[in-house]
């Protein structure tokens, strides 16, 4: 009889343990459950959702500064059809069959010095996009099919677009797909004219506001209707 009591006591304890364990497991699951949103729409390239990457990945405050291998702004613009155009690829590309992806990102995600090109690899401001050759194409020939009259638009000048002497300059270009300011403004491949003096401050748009002197005809401008 005594043995039976002990056995049933243990069974009871075990059962209670199982129930409690199950319950806590279930409630744990509830906590951990994040509702899955069925639809994840594409969300690129809005101009106003600022600095996504500046705070992440590379340590931009500690980038080498190598005057011998710095690009100039002129070189920077050389392989762009116009101010703001996706640059063409200035070097040979080994494999034509891929979309770019890792073979491009190997060098262009975090940069670094290339012995072959004697230059620092520019860092891409949108590494999440892997279909590189969709926009960037190598140049295989130097001849034209026919001459062109296309003129690049005016390029903003550097260094004098601040409100007051010494106040932070405004951003003169669109920032669509250029969410990581530092990848262009604080790396060894950065042209010296646009290299930032304070890469450790990553919240760039705290001080620099956008002003590309453009109107976008389609954006509705908010006008306060004065009510009497």
């Amino acid at each position, binding site marked *: 009889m005594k043995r039976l009591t002990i056995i049933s006591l243990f069974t009871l304890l075990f059962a209670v343990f199982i129930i409690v364990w199950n319950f806590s497991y279930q409630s744990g699951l509830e906590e951990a459950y994040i509702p899955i949103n069925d*639809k*994840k729409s*594409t969300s*690129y*390239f*809005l101009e106003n959702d600022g600095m996504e990457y500046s705070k992440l990945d590379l340590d931009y405050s500690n*980038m080498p500064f190598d005057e011998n291998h710095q690009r100039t702004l002129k070189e920077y613009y050389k392989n762009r*059809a116009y101010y*703001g*155009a996706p640059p*063409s690829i200035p070097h040979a590309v080994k494999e*034509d*069959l*891929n*979309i770019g992806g890792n073979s491009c990102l190997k060098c262009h995600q975090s940069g670094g010095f290339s012995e072959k090109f004697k230059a620092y690899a520019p860092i891409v401001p949108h590494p*999440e*996009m*892997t*279909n590189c*050759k*969709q926009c*960037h*194409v190598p*140049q*295989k*020939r130097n001849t*034209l*099919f*026919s*001459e*062109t*009259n*296309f*003129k*690049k*638009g*005016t*390029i903003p000048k*550097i260094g004098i*677009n601040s*409100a007051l002497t*010494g*106040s*932070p300059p405004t951003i*003169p270009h669109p920032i*669509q*797909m250029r969410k990581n300011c530092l990848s262009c403004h604080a790396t060894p491949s950065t042209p*010296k004219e646009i*290299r930032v*003096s*304070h*890469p450790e401050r990553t919240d760039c748009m705290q001080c620099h506001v956008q*002003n*590309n*002197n*453009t*109107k*976008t*005809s*389609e954006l509705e401008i908010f006008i306060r209707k004065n009510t009497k």
Partner: protein
Amino acid sequence: MYTSVLTDRRSFIKKMAMLSAMTAAATMFPGILFAEEQERGLPKSKGLDWKKAPCRFCGVGCGVLVGIENGKAVAVKGDPRSPVNKGLCCVKGYHSVIAIYGKDRLTKPLIKKNGKYVETSMKEALDLIASKMKETIKDHGKDAVSIYGSGQWTIPDGYVASKLFKGCIGTNNVEANARLCMASAVTGFMTSFGMDEPMGCYEDIDYADVFVLWGNNMAEMHPVLFSRLLDQRSKRNVKIIDLATRTTRTSKASDRSIIFEPQTDLAIANAICYEIIKNGWVNKSFVEKHCNFNKGLTNIGYGLEDKFKFKDKPQKISFDAYKKFLEDYTPEKVSKLSGVSVRDIKYMASYYGDPNKKIMSLWCMGINQHTRGTWMNNLVYNIHLLTGKISEPGNSPFSLTGQPSACGTVREVGTLTHKLPYGVVMNKKHREIAAKIWDVPVENISPKPTYHTVEMFRALDRGDIRFMWIQVTNPMVTMPKLKRYRDAAKKEGRFIVVSDIYPTPTTDIADVILPAAMWIEREGMYGNSERRTQYFEQMIEPPGEAMSDTWQLIEVAKRLGYEKQFYYKKETHIEEIYNEYTKFHKGKKHGMAPLEVLKKESGVIWPYVDGKSTQWRFNAKYDPATTKEGFDFYGKPDGKAIIWQRPYEPAAEEPDNEYPYWLNTGRVIEHWHSGSMTRRIPVLHKAMPFAYVELNPEDAKRMKIKTGDKVKLTTRRGNIVLPASVNERGIPAPMQVFVPFFDENFLINDITLDSFCPISKEPDYKKCAVKIEKV
């Protein structure tokens, strides 16, 4: 240690102090932004003005913002508000404005006199065209004059062309190059659903779990959409399956690349249906409620002979008969024919069959440019209908287009010989509707379709057609078996008018060349693959005397005495035409958004009902035009879609001992169609300067051919010598070669075959037999 170039730390601190002072000032005087000072250093010009337009190039129809400075287009960025591309473009879109400024732009009308082109005035050129048309009609009848337009026609261009030729002159000789790329998609839709154009929209991409690309190199041809797939993959781990005959960038980027023998896609699709039925994956209630089974004629020919005629005879069949038919398409049998492993067939079928997976099929030229293109379209719909995976977010058979307005103009306005803006010429009611809106006697509109594109050029060769006006397209690069049609156009007694923006091989055969205003040099609308109509305003002035295609047609129509029908005023004609045109599509099934809405939005999807777009048609949840519960395929009288029994049949010309290789043709990402615009964009031309023949590395090794070697391609139509390309952009399967068609110096279409799908009349540019030799 980091040394600053612009400033040192001390002056930086000073700047910060300044800044806080300025911020303080700004808070005290809200609204004052020191704008003037901030703008010093910025260009002194009036500044860039960004205006929205649909991209000029492909059928994806990305929204772009064109930067205008001092009356010139100088920059492009993606329109972040466009639901199509959300701010992203491809290399063609980004550089599209450069295509406006080629040095050799046509700016003056040219008339051929004694074999030489002489500059003249627009007035004289238009007078000549009108008098030639009158003369031809008098001497040879109405059906001797014709117009050949394009899927790059804006909606008003196509509309006035159709009104002039079908309504006023009274001939159905209206065709467009979309016959060469979209006709099978149209007949596929019409036979399966009774209504043209996809039921879903691009937003399906955001919901689907699996994407099957049927012979569609999306990474190069629909790059922005492909980036959307990649984006979904990085967020939700979706699967991309590339089913193709050639290894491409798309194959490399997909999760699974499956290569099949050309033409056997017919058998593969049937094998998938077989598996779906065998494994009990059929959505029985959907099929019972919403589908009928039909079979049509078989052994339907290839249209190789002049005046080829074909009419299908649909016949209702039972599900059991269909099931029986599919027994010829077990994965084992199909595997032998197609070279696709049994495992891969079952793998695809299991995704289609899994009720928990949302699936999208995407295709374009691989399926459409096919001697059984209509059948192939039907077969893909079969898969989606059997499983009930259709017309809801993420479950979507999606037929893509290649031209910016193949849908908007050719398919919706109906610039094909049998079409009217609403309905077909064969239908009396439809003719009456058209006659009323066009303000012409109904007898004017002929009830008989005349020539489809290939036959139209054959008629030009025979002399049945004497006058042809070609607008916004380059048939002397793109027609199959090109040599015959080039010779035809040069024959005595033919009069060819070409409206274009640059000299092309097509302007070379012209008697009159009219300089056209391009894209944003005029006002207009395009309609893309997802039924999205997009408006663009005139942003810059056209060069010289260049004139929009719409206005060219109106001027000629007036000269022919149709002032009453072509009452439009110069300043407002686009608006007037659009308002007149949309009368054809009133109602819940095809209502179009009013112009004010188009002007405001980055495109609007039709049907536009009560201020709202219908994103998923035929589904009662989303489509106000439905009258039944669940699904209502209202294109068919009984509201039921059709599952077609379509067998495998071989291609028109298959490799044999004499011509042992398959020849496939197509595009590359850098160039759009015949290259007449993209080759004038330096960055694109330099990236892809000339055409080549792609060989399989094994074949190349055997024949000792390296990249750059000259290779002679011979078919029954002739031969051409091209530089070889091995292990570069794409890798054809063994015993196949691929040649892009953009290069007018290497006219690959001289040797392609003009066989076509007997139902859609769309040629098959992807398959003919060729011999390869190293020279």
